């Protein structure tokens, strides 16, 4: 069934001689990635840095990242899943119809060449961005890339990693996992954690209008979510914790200004490879930290009578 085969960024720096960026534009979205981790650094086993690495960029259009790549493969929009699935077949020497391959915008020769290079690599890595994970096919596109990377380990060392961004999204994912078992899309209404992306993920809840209140922390859905979700946020009591005025805070019933984490509030950030980095504030803020505000809200909520009326301390029959 595939899985997820990954590493920390130092492994890329020290070992990766074959690097694929898929559906992302790190030159503009992760400006330090090339110089700090993936392309330029001289690593323990890639002593000549960039010269020892082959870089492939796969995207639907030419971005600024193309200049940094040795090979650019331009996929037709919405064909990433097809290309990844073809690659999965090709690494196993399965026949694929060249005419149908052409519909992806790439030729069979290009893909056969890519496979040969992937297999020749000593340590390959595939980074993928939202151009893959947020386009038609969504989680299945990511699954296709992760599975390809896992399967490549039958031939050589290969890993994959999502290029995550936007604040401490990885940190939220990590903490939710240890506290609830699930990374996101978690529902506590029955008193214990349940998970079902599509049913419980924020954007789906809002689009369907399933929530009658919202507390928003470290995000600006008013700027990024589809209009029906934004409309629902404006309809219901929405509380925003944010250091600045945002699209969401403008439509919220309550905006609590908080200190900026990392600048005037301490904490821990989790890097895209899940390595924790301590955040040390350089300044003082007149505003409370997010943590303090949430703690006080939590204390007030805890003081209310229990609404779950559980029959016992635990249940062996989940819904």
């Amino acid at each position, binding site marked *: *069934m595939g899985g997820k085969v990954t590493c920390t960024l130092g492994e890329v720096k020290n070992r990766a001689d074959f690097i694929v960026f898929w559906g992302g534009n790190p030159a503009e979205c992760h400006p330090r990635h090339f110089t700090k981790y993936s392309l330029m650094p001289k690593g323990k086993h890639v002593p000549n840095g960039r010269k020892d690495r082959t870089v492939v960029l796969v995207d639907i259009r030419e971005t600024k990242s193309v200049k940094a790549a040795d090979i650019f493969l331009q996929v037709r929009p919405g064909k990433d*899943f*097809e290309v990844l*699935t*073809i690659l*999965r*077949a090709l690494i*196993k020497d*399965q*026949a*694929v*119809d060249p005419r*149908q*391959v052409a*519909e*992806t915008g790439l030729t069979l020769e290009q893909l056969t060449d890519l496979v040969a290079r992937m297999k020749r690599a000593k340590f390959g890595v595939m980074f993928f961005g939202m151009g893959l994970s947020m386009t*038609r*096919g969504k989680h*299945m596109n990511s699954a296709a890339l992760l599975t390809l990377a896992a399967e490549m380990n039958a031939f050589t060392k290969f890993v994959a990693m999502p290029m995550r961004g936007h604040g401490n999204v990885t940190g939220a994912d990590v903490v939710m996992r240890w506290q609830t078992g699930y990374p996101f899309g978690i529902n*506590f*209404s*029955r008193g214990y954690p349940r*998970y*079902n*992306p*599509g*049913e419980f993920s924020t954007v789906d809840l809002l689009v369907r209008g*399933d*929530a*009658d209140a919202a507390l928003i922390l470290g995000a600006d859905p008013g700027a990024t979510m589809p209009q029906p979700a934004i409309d629902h946020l404006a309809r219901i009591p929405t509380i925003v914790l944010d250091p600045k005025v945002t699209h969401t805070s403008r439509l919220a019933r309550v905006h609590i200004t908080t200190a900026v984490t990392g600048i005037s509030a301490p904490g821990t950030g989790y890097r895209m490879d899940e390595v924790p980095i301590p955040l040390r504030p350089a300044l003082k803020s007149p505003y409370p930290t997010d943590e303090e505000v949430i703690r006080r809200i939590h204390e007030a909520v805890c003081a209310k009578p229990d*609404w*779950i*009326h559980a029959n016992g301390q635990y249940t062996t029959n989940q*819904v």
Partner: protein
Amino acid sequence: MSAIVLRLKDRPAVPLEAEVISPDLLAEMPHADIRAQAVYLGKRRLRLDDLFEVEGERSDQVEVHGDLGQVKWLGRGMSRGSLVVHGNAGMHLGAYMRGGRIEVHGSAGDWLGAEMKNGQIRVQGDAGGQVGAAYRGSLSGMRDGTILIGGSAGLEVGMRMRRGTIVIGGRARDFAGLQMKGGTLVLLGGAEIRAGAWMVRGTIISLQPLTLLPTFTYACRYNPDFLRLYSRFLAPLGIELPVAAQQGSYALYSGDASVPGKGEILVWQPV
């Protein structure tokens, strides 16, 4: 034995979870107990009669009336009797079902018949996504039974199904038969892209042309014998598959080579 009849008073503002509306659970109960059963409106635990008008008792024939589009888990894990919904049904209808029959005179939400083991679900209208599918992370979707959808269906219909039959009357969206391991998926109205993606085994039959992944290989055109038998199984359910050679034939594709899998996709080609 007359049926238990439940009438939804008002469409709830937030989702209502009512797995208790299942013949197995209500069949032996006196009227007062049925009324007192717990349902969950958002985070609040309420009585069934807070939301429904309740008639009847001690029956494994359950009828529900009203717009239940926000009501989840109807018929969860049921093994006998019948559940008839006059109106729409919410998500997870008949999930984990083991037997009995569900009928919906309306449309149904996502995860209908997810991981069901047996029984029959028929929906007159449309269905959401993940019909008969495996829940996230599970190895297998439906293991047996029959799901009949009159209208269209959403994403990932029959994902990882192992046995049983799903028939979609209208069009299915992307990834119909995703990672199928067995069973039969009949697409009377065809499907959007990526049907049969990563399938290991099992059969997809489409009466409309399909856009297949490049990892499926055309094998031949024929009128397979098993389809004659299969159409005899479907006929009493009101579903007709063309099988006569004079009407046309099926193009057989095998794949998905990326797995590599031995699934079959049959696409009807009328004369």
